[in-house]
Every structure is written in structure tokens, then in C-alpha cells.
């Protein structure tokens, strides 16, 4: 659950340290909690992590799109990952954070989008050969979004693909 809460500050620090790290065979993933499950995204796709500060609603948008926020002058959409993955909605609390991710659209344009998650967890180093294909039988997660499965101390790590996840 949330016993491994790392603050936003710490994670951001780790993100900063990563710039110098170059290890060819290990990919690093930032993990976060959603409905007690640990999910992760390629850390190189993570631009920054912010506290939830609200967003301006976009009329007639999909329910998972919470709206747009101001990221130092840039308009960035924010998506509730629980709703995107079809999980139960949960009220935002002090642990709720927005992870700003870079993704590439089908047209090859790089965009950024925020995703709301319950809490950030940790940074994991996983070598590509340890990533397993996700079983086809995923119950409530759209299989397209899942890149594969990794493992962490606490159990399975669901690796998400930002490109499909954030394409609306």
C-alpha cells in the first residue's frame, strides 16, 4: 500500500541524479501506486512530479481527463490514471501526485501530459531480459497500455507504455 511513501522531493532528486548514470543493460522505472498495485513507467519518460493542484475542466472531454494545468506557462492536460485504467475513483488526498510524462503521438509529435496517481513509490532498475510479457488475461487493465511485467521486492510491477496510455 502506501508504506513505502517516498516524498516528491526525494524522487525528484533521484531523477536529477539519473542524468549522469549510464548503464546500457539496465532500464530504470519509476513506480507508483494505483489501487494498491504497483505500476511503473520508463523513468526517461518522466519529466517531473508535482503535487495535485487542481486543473481546469475541459468541456465534453473523456471522464479520465481531469482538465488542463499550467506548467510554467505551458498548458498540459492531466489524466486520472485510475479512471483511465478503469479502476474505482478515489478522492484526492495529500499523497496524490501528478507525474508529468513525455509521450509520442501516432503522428510522431512529442507531447507532455500529467497523470494523477495515488502515490509515487520508488525507482527500480530492471534489465530488459527480466521484463516478461503480460498475460493476455488482464482483467481491468487495457492490455494495450501494458508493456510488460517486472518484479520488485513487494511483488509484480506493471510496466505501462506512455505512448498508448496517453494517446487520446
Amino acid at each position: 500500500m502506501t508504506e513505502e511513501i517516498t516524498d516528491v522531493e526525494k524522487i525528484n532528486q533521484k531523477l536529477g541524479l539519473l542524468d549522469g548514470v549510464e548503464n546500457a543493460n539496465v532500464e530504470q522505472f519509476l513506480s507508483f501506486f494505483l489501487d494498491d498495485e504497483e505500476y511503473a513507467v520508463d523513468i526517461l519518460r518522466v519529466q517531473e512530479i508535482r503535487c495535485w493542484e487542481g486543473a481546469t475542466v475541459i468541456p465534453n472531454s473523456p471522464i479520465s481527463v481531469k482538465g488542463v494545468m499550467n506548467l510554467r506557462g505551458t498548458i498540459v492536460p492531466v489524466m486520472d490514471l485510475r479512471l483511465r485504467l478503469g479502476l474505482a475513483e478515489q478522492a484526492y488526498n495529500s499523497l496524490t501526485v501528478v507525474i508529468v510524462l513525455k509521450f509520442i503521438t501516432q503522428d510522431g509529435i512529442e507531447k507532455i501530459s500529467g497523470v494523477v496517481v495515488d502515490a509515487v513509490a520508488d525507482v527500480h532498475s530492471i534489465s530488459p531480459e527480466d521484463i516478461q510479457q503480460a498475460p493476455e488475461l488482464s482483467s481491468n487493465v487495457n492490455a494495450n497500455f501494458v508493456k510488460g511485467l517486472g518484479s520488485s521486492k513487494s511483488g509484480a510491477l506493471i510496466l505501462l507504455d506512455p505512448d498508448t496510455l496517453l494517446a487520446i
Partner: protein
Amino acid sequence: MTVDLSQFYQVFFDESLEGLDAMEAELLRYSEGTQDDESINTIFRAAHSIKGGSGTFGFDSIAGFTHVLETLLDQIRDGQRDITSQHIDLFLQSIDCLREMINALSSGDDSVPESTAQLKAAFEAILNDEVADEGEQSALEAEQITTDSATQAAAIASEAHENTSGWKVTFIPSEDILMTGNEPLYLIQELTELGDHEVELVTEKIPSWSELKPEFCYLRWIVKLYCDCTEQQINEVFEWVADESEIKIEELAATESTKVAAVPALNQQDTASSEAAANEVKSSAPAVTKNADTKAATAKPATKAKQADANSIRVGIDKVDSLINMVGELVITQAMLSQLFEGEMTAQSLTRMKEGLAQLEHNTRDLQESVMRIRMLPISFVFSRFPRLVRDTGQKLGKKIELILQGESTELDKTVMEKISDPLVHLVRNAMDHGLESPEQRLAAGKPEIGKLTLNAYHQGGNVVIEIIDDGKGLDPIKIKNKAISNGLIGENDELSEEQINLLIFEAGFSTAEAVSDLSGRGVGMDVVKSNIQALNGSVDVESVVGKGATFRIRLPLTLAILDGQLIRIGQHVYIIPLVNIIESLQINQNDVSRIGGEYDVLHLRGEYVPIICLADVFLHKSDAQTLTDGLLVVVEVDGGKVGIFVDDLLAQQQVVIKSLEANYNKVEGISGATILGDGTVSLIIDIVSLVRMAGVKNISSHNLVATETHAQGGTA
């Protein structure tokens, strides 16, 4: 000599393109017969400075090409020959060619378009003809002619040398060359940049150690160049040292060349070279037309390059001056404000501070306006390309067309201008291809033989309006309707007014392959024109009278960056309505509201019926207002009609900086963009046209107001 010339490239490109524009304008005046004495000088000067500049920067392809151009221009200027329409065509083609070369160079590509060689050959043929003609003239003039043809022969020779296998350059610098600040090494380096080479150093003149003076240069060089550079290019390298040094330039015999395939040794006789040139011209004639055909294909990379280098802007000095004035004012106000805090705070200083802040606000706004004005350019920047386009297209179509440009000084934001130019070209082409008739048809219809095409620009409110008016045959509503029915755009039995039919040409599904003609098909790509204009927050419509002509009218916002907005509130949501759209805001009197068909409301407003759109319903928000009397109605103008937008409350009016929503998200219906308010939150800007479409209100301007609400909740909140 170590100055990095590449920093000046952009200036050269900009100036050369301007020069070409000037040349083109003057040449077109020739073809219209409105030239004056200065025209040829203007053309010559432009060509000359392009040649000079390109020589300096080492763009030899351009320099070489403009050289022939200049030679012919020089003769015309001196009255040695008259300018003919053939010359004008050739010059115009060369301008296109040079433009292409400059655009290519500015994107770092120094390849030479095929047409260069053909045009060059054509020019040389003209120049050589002259020599031949004069040669046939009487002996009395022989002496003068010899000198004439001698200079020309020299010019031709220097060009013709391009075909030689190479050059042997012997460079013997004067001993004190180093003292004059020249470095022979750089010269050799520059020389070797011309192409393949062999450099031989001659050291035999170095004296014995005791006699050697360290400041003197005893070295000599022999450089063999195996490339097709001209003698002139070599001379240019030594331009600065030619006086004090000995430079021998000899041609390498073809056999001597080891790297270049044998080229027939140059025959310097005029007859031979003119013959060769004439042959070249013969073969080049079809190639030139071919080149024109492929132009459509080559046009794309050219525009791409333009986008890449369109990063500078020329601003009138008055605009900069006014900017400096504003900044001065700002500094004074700031000084005044900070002075207030030096002493004790009193009631008096508080009032002065208020005044100061008001002043600051005023100054900021002025400054902002001045800065915006910097981005504004007269629309003549776009219009200026049309005389040429109309001339060429007219010739191609065999139509006589008079182009009238009006309101050329109307100013428009640079970004808008860049993006409007392609749709405009399309509309103008359309008007020429399909609007205007051939001279015979015109005479038969009792119209003057020469068709009139007018481009008109003017300001209207916060908009710029551009009209493309032709006096041709107009749109054929029956044809359009039939096509729309066959394309399934409308049903067979749909009752449409003529206006509505005409607007069908902007529909996406209207164009069909069979409508594509050589130039354009009226209707082909019109949907693209429309969507391009809409992307600029503009609109386009058409008025047409069969047999009398058609008018396409484009409306564009003055600028894309900033707009005056009215903040409005629905529940907890704050939106912005562009102030230019708003006519008035009022409180609704329930007695004036009629409910039509039990579904939607109209407001009786001073003799007009204004449909009411409830913003909360369209955007699916929860509104505070329970009845129409609880909120406010913002009456906006759209498509020439009026629509009321029902909101909970009006908040402040302020200027907002438009930010793109599409940069990281998608286009949202009813929303044109976003902005960031003073408190850092994001607010969305309402796109009235799209909002009205969403609400399903149609025929706003017609008398029988037909309005349907798309949402089941109906018009009342």
C-alpha cells in the same frame, strides 16, 4: 581574413531575396509597359549587388549565374540592345532560379538547380548573337565592334572556361607581402577551396641563412586546380594582393589533366563558342518548359526552406522609436513609484501611488500595443507576389487579366500573413482559372475583353478582411448542387438557398478527381482553404452572381498572440469570450423570451429574435442560475447574425495571451485555446463559431430563425 563570413549569410540571403523582389516588380512593369528610366537601373543594381555579395561570400554558383545576367542587363542599360519580351521571360525565370538557389543555400544545400545551366546557355546565346550580328555589319563600324565584341568575348570566354579541365596558377608574392598584412597561406587555402587541386611550393628563391630576412616572404606557389571554376573566381582570390604580386593564370591543357575527363580544348573563336552555345540553347528549350512543369513538385521544399529561415523581420524605424519612447515612460513611472517609498507613508503618498499604478497600467498597455505593432507588416508583402502569378497564369491560360491591388498598406500580424498566403494563392488561381472567362467568351457575353481581378484588404473592427473579386462568370449553383447531390453532401430534395449552395464548395467532400484541372478546380482544395483560414481563427465566405463574378471574402484576426477577453463564469468554471465577438451583455426579461417548439428559447431584442444558447448545457457544466433571469446574456455576433450566450456571471475584462491547447492535447470543440489568468490557473477561450455549431443553431442571419438545441435539457437552465 579570419572573419567568419557565415554570420552574415542570413543578411545576404534576406537582401538578395529583397533584391530579387525588386527586380521582379520592375520587370513586370516592363511587361505592362509602365517602366521608367530608373527601372533598368534598379534591376541592374539589384543584380549587381547579388553578384557582388555572392562573390564575397563564395557562393560561386550564384555569382557565376548573375554574371551573365548582369552582362546582358549592362548592354540593355547602355542602350546597346532593346529589352524584348523574350528577355523579360528569361529574366523572370532566372529570378525564380536564383530564389531557388538562395533558398537552397540558406538551408545549407548548395546544389544547383538544373535550370541554371539552361538559362545560362540561353543568356550566352543572346549575348553571342549580338556578337555575330555585329560581325555582319558594315566595315565602317568594324573598329568599334571589335572592341565591343572583344569585351564580350572576354566575358564569354571567362564563362566558357567552365568547361576547361583546370588552371595552373603561379603565385609569386612580392617579398614584403607579409608587411602589408596579407597572409599568402590564406590565399592558397582559399584557392584550394575551389576544387580538386595540387599545390607545389617553390623554395628556390630562399636565400642563404645569413641573407635571409625573417619578415620577407621568399616562397612561391604553383597551384594546379582541376575544377571547373572560372578565371574570374581565381582572380577574386588574389583581389587584394594583385597589385604587389605576380600572378600567372594558365589554362591546363586537357591532356595535362589527370583527374578530369578530356574536354575539347577551348576554342576561343567567337564562331565556335556561339555555335556551341546555340546548340545548347536548342537542347535546352524543351528542358526549360519541362522545368516549369516540375515546378509544382519543387515548390514544396522551397516553402519548407522559407519556414526555416523566416526568423527575421524588418521593422520601420518609427515603430522602434515609439517603443523606445514607451520604455522611457515606463522607466519614469517606475522611478516615481520607487521614490514614493523613500519617505514616510502618508495618505498623500498613497493617492500618488494609486496614480502611479494607473499610469503604469497605461504604459504597460501602450508598450504591449507597440510591441504587437512590430509584428505587423503591410499586406503588400503577400500581395506583391500576385502580379507575377497573374501574369504567368494569364499567359498560360490565354486569358487577359488586369490585376488591381487595393489596401496594400493594411497591416497584419506576420504569423497570420505567412499562413494566409497559400490559401490566397489558391483562391486567386481559382478565380483566374474558373472565374474569369477567355477573351472570346467575355466578348460574347458583352463584357470587356480584359478580365478584372481585384485584391482588396481593409480593417473592420478587430479583423482584417481580404477580398478576392473577379468579374467572371460566377459560381454555377445548378452545377454545384448537382455535384453535391452526386457526392452525397446534400439530399436530392434539400431546399437550399443560392448562398447555401455556394458555401458547399468549401465542404470537405465536395472535390472530386474529375474536377481537377491543370491549375485548379473550383472546389478542389477549397475545404483546405477553409480549414487553413479557420485554423487562424478566421472565416471565409463567397458571394456570387451568375455572369457577373464572384467575391471571396476572408476575415482574419489582427493577431494570434493576444486578445481582449471577457471573463465569464458558469458555476465554478471560468471561460473567456473574445471581446471582439461581443455586441452587448444584458439581463433577460422573461417576458421577452419565447419558447419555440418547447425546446429552445429566443429573446426578442429590439425587433430581432436572438436564439439563446445555454453555455452550461453545451459544456455539460452545472450552472448556478435556475432560470433565465438569474444569469446574464452575452449577445455575440457570429456569421453576420446574433446569438445570445447565457452565463451565470460576467467577471473582469482583460487582455489574455493565447496558448495552444493542441500543443499537448487535442482540439476541443467550442474552444479556440487557453490562457493563464493572473492567479496562475488555466482558463479556456470560447470559439464562438464552433460553439454555435455545437449548439446546433442554424440560419442565424435569415429571417425565420430556426434553432435547435442538441442537448435534451433544452434551452432553459
